[in-house]
């Protein structure tokens, strides 16, 4: 036998989902190995994320997971000591046409049903929250003060530190090449460096989840699309919430930006049409498109200097919601895939849920969440404002 060691859980991917899962599992005493193809943690999609964290979705599963994420992230510093740059600035969706106004107001009903702290404000009210918004044509918008943002990099490292402190092991620069099954049960993970037996294998491989699943003959309906983002120089603080504009414009379906704890702004949009694939190379189209949008919505940003631009991958599912659950075909194979660009906000809550799944401590609420996120669900329509 060339098995290097046995672990209770082997997690594939040290990203926004794998890392909090490793922490949650190590914390309850499981032996955990995390494998990642990159040389250090969070180098896949985590580092490309801009760090928005909100619970104001319309899907109860996501709402529940993100509410827990906000709890974890917002109390992290006092609990564990790391500054993850949590800023409870809220999310602010702006409406400049009746079309967005209608979408938002429709959504509010659902959101209020789930007890979310989000309200409609008219233009005047919105300008009190963000005085620098372009007033011309502004109808109003929704504001959810309990949402916020953090540094994905620092959060990932904070989980990394705590996971290691609780004994989780990390094998970086190591690529999964296959699995060893005994009957219907996954028995071991094979990498380019060796084999590891495991009770449970978690696929948290983000945009590469399909590739990993294919090694067990699955065809996970997860495929990445490419999103470009940018970050500015730091300037004196003047914007608290994440600002979201859902109007389409040439090349983009929306726009969101916020000011980080460092004073820098990050910004990105959903390209329209979507750009499928894994091409992380930067293009010339992004900055002219995003700059126009940003200045239109907040003229004060004209003089804000752009520092860097990059591309990241969103592992998309057919309906825009994650796929979480045990495989029915391969025993011991747990999917936590298809975060659709929301891994950072879903990850902390999801990590704990995955830990409860492995230790068989699911609550009735968890059961409900898992039903909604089931990989075996029928894919209906996309969630509004996902």
């Amino acid at each position: 036998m060339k098995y290097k060691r046995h672990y209770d859980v082997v997690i594939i991917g040290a990203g926004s989902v794998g890392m909090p899962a490793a922490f949650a599992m190590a914390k309850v005493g499981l032996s955990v190995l995390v494998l990642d193809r990159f040389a250090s943690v969070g180098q896949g999609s985590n580092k490309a994320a801009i760090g928005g964290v909100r619970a104001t979705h319309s899907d109860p599963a996501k709402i529940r997971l993100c509410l827990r994420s906000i709890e974890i992230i917002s109390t992290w510093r006092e609990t564990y000591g790391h500054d993850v740059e949590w800023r409870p600035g809220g999310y602010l969706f702006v409406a400049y046409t009746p079309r967005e106004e209608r979408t938002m107001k429709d959504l509010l009903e659902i959101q209020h049903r789930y007890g979310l702290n989000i309200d409609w404000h008219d233009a005047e009210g919105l300008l009190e929250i963000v005085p620098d918004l372009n007033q011309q044509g502004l109808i109003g918008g929704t504001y959810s003060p309990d949402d916020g943002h953090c540094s994905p990099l620092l959060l990932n490292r904070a989980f990394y530190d705590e996971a290691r402190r609780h004994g989780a092991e990390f094998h970086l620069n190591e690529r999964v090449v296959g699995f060893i099954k005994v009957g219907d049960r996954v028995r071991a993970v094979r990498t380019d460096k060796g084999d590891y037996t495991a009770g449970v294998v978690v696929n948290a491989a983000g945009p590469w989840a399909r590739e990993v699943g294919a090694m067990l003959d699955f065809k996970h309906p997860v495929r990445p699309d490419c999103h470009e983002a940018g970050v500015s120089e730091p300037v004196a603080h003047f914007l608290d919430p994440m600002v979201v504009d859902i109007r389409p414009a040439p090349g983009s379906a929306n726009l969101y930006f916020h000011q980080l704890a460092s004073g820098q702004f990050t910004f990105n949009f959903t390209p329209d049409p979507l750009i499928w694939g894994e091409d992380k190379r930067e293009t010339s189209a992004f900055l002219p498109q995003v700059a126009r949008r940003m200045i239109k919505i907040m003229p004060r940003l004209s003089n804000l200097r752009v520092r860097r631009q990059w591309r990241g991958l969103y592992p998309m599912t057919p309906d825009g919601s994650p796929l979480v659950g045990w495989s029915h075909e391969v025993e011991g194979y747990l999917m936590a895939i298809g975060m659709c660009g929301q891994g950072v906000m879903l990850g902390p809550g999801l990590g704990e849920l995955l830990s409860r799944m492995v230790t068989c401590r699911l609550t009735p609420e968890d059961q409900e969440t898992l039903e909604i996120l089931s990989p075996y669900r029928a894919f209906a329509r996309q969630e509004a404002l996902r």
Partner: protein
Amino acid sequence: MRIEEHPILKVERKRPFEFAFSGEKLQAYEGETIAAALFANGIRIFGNHQKDGSPQGIFCANSQCSQCLVIADGKPLKACMTAVRPGMQVEPVCGLPELPKVDSVPPMREIEEVEVQVLIIGGGPAGLSAAIELGRRGIKTLIVEDKSALGGKLVLQTHRFFGSSDAVYAGTRGIDIAAKLEEKVRAFPSVEVWLNSSALAVFSDHKVGILRNGKDYVLVEPEVLLVSTGARERSLVFRGNTLPGVYGAGAFQTLVNRDLVKAAERLFIVGGGNVGLIAGYHAIQAGIQVAGLAEALPECGGYKVHRDKLARLGVPIYTSHTVISANGKDQVESVTIAQVDEKFNPISGTEKSFACDTLLVAVGLDPVDEFYRKALEFGITALAAGDAKEVAEASAAIISGEIAGLKVASALGLEEAEAPKGLERMAEVLASKPGLCLPKGTPHREEGVFPVIHCRQEIPCNPCASACPRGLIRIDPEDIRKVPEFVEGDKSCIGCERCVVVCPGLAIALVDYRKDSEWPTVTLPYELSRESLNVGEIVTAVDEEGNPLGEVEVTEVKAIPKNDRTLLIELKSPRVLAEEIAGLRVQAPEVSAPLPEATLRLADDEIACRCERVTVGEIRKLIREGCRDMNEIKAATRAGMGPCGGKVCGPLIKRLFLEESISLESVTDYVRRPLFLEVPLSAFAGASDEE
């Protein structure tokens, strides 16, 4: 604090006007950068870092770092790249800059897109030489240059160039070579030049983002990209390494030789390569004292003639020494050096401190190759030339550019323009490091007239051989790196002084016994201010390496127009010294005297990433914990996340790995991302205001 008189450079100032710094009215001249104007007014602290309040000033003066940030008329800008304007209100950056309020959406234009056959990024020696080859063939070429003038670093070089007289203008001053190249380029109608225009990014869709005239964003799509972006200066780790007053030797040359600012009163230099040695020489030309130069290796890496030239002026050169601290509260007041052991660790007890206001860092250059690497990654037909390809002398860059120009023409399928073999060979020769150093051999002729050549190290240079009208100075024509020899046959030296004048190393003295064989005349080249030397004055004559020989009298100071600003000094020397004299000391010994006691800086402030103020200690700790990924260092500490994007700290961090005996092959390099410079959103939106 401006240079009013310079032995080589013409001091011509344009219109004076007022601007303000921190509300204080100051004078500037049209065309000056904000940085130059501030330095000229004695201001070296441009702000305080938002993270720890540390004072900030110039480091690169070349747009590579972002340490010189100021707020000019409400906008954060690099002081080194922005021209000061009448009435401009400049404020130091203290903490985070306030973004000015803007009331309405400005008009926005579509971003202009331009197609060209060849885009050349960088109008220095390599880029210009390439453009000449392309212009000659009528190829539509665009040169983008981020400065307000062409020539790159040539415009800072007051000294005569080494290299080959036939191929690369050897014996001509760098500043004049720049003008010659520009004149040629401007004559070709197919070559367009955009000054004050910076390349920001090479994109995967094969477009190159250019900020034209410092404000208009343009996307240029070339068939072939030529990257001739030169090199950037390396930083160095020591305590106090980011104090204002610690900056690159290239930055110093920019302030002094381009901007004509007396940037320092007295400086110290770390690094004995050509850049450091030449910077020391340029300092003395500009009337700035040089307290010494430290080089960690047992020998200076630069040309020996450069080293000797500086030593002869009276600058002590401390080999096997390094800088251990720059001292002072808000700016440099002194530096402390120490001897190093064979592993380059400072030896305790050998510390010496020197009073000075500036420490020049000249510890090597790295190619500015980001655009080239991106182009290769994205499958764009691209070439690199000059320092962007391989760091070497500017003479080598000229040939490298010429070859690149021919290769680009060939890549465009316009002709079978294979670079001639001779050119490739010349490029190799000019880029070669100094070779063997032959032992000193003195002629001891004691009669007639003849040159004594104080040039014993193999370097690529031949103006002396080209200059001798009788062909008596010989350098192997097959290999100009060979040492020159004075060989008399049937013809003999006529004492024409041409070799003395033309030698870029100022390494030839003419000894003439004909008038008075007991008191022969020694003729030396002199490139300092004429006023500093008078006939009848008694001076200290020194040998080749700067050791004092004795006091001699100046009998003549000759300024001959055809000698192009090189003065000739005649000394009346006793017979026994005549053939040893290679120069005269100009700097008083007290300038370079160490302080009575060495200062040891206590603050543990060795900075690796100056943008984000990340200390060496923080990074070393991660490395010792097992980190082998530059991206992880960035994620964990922010080193490399600042405005310069790891351009300055990247090489330093790699050195930290090496110091921990970790091979760089096992370290994952940064994933590099644009932009090269920080540019306002308004530019990308086509909304740059008219100015």
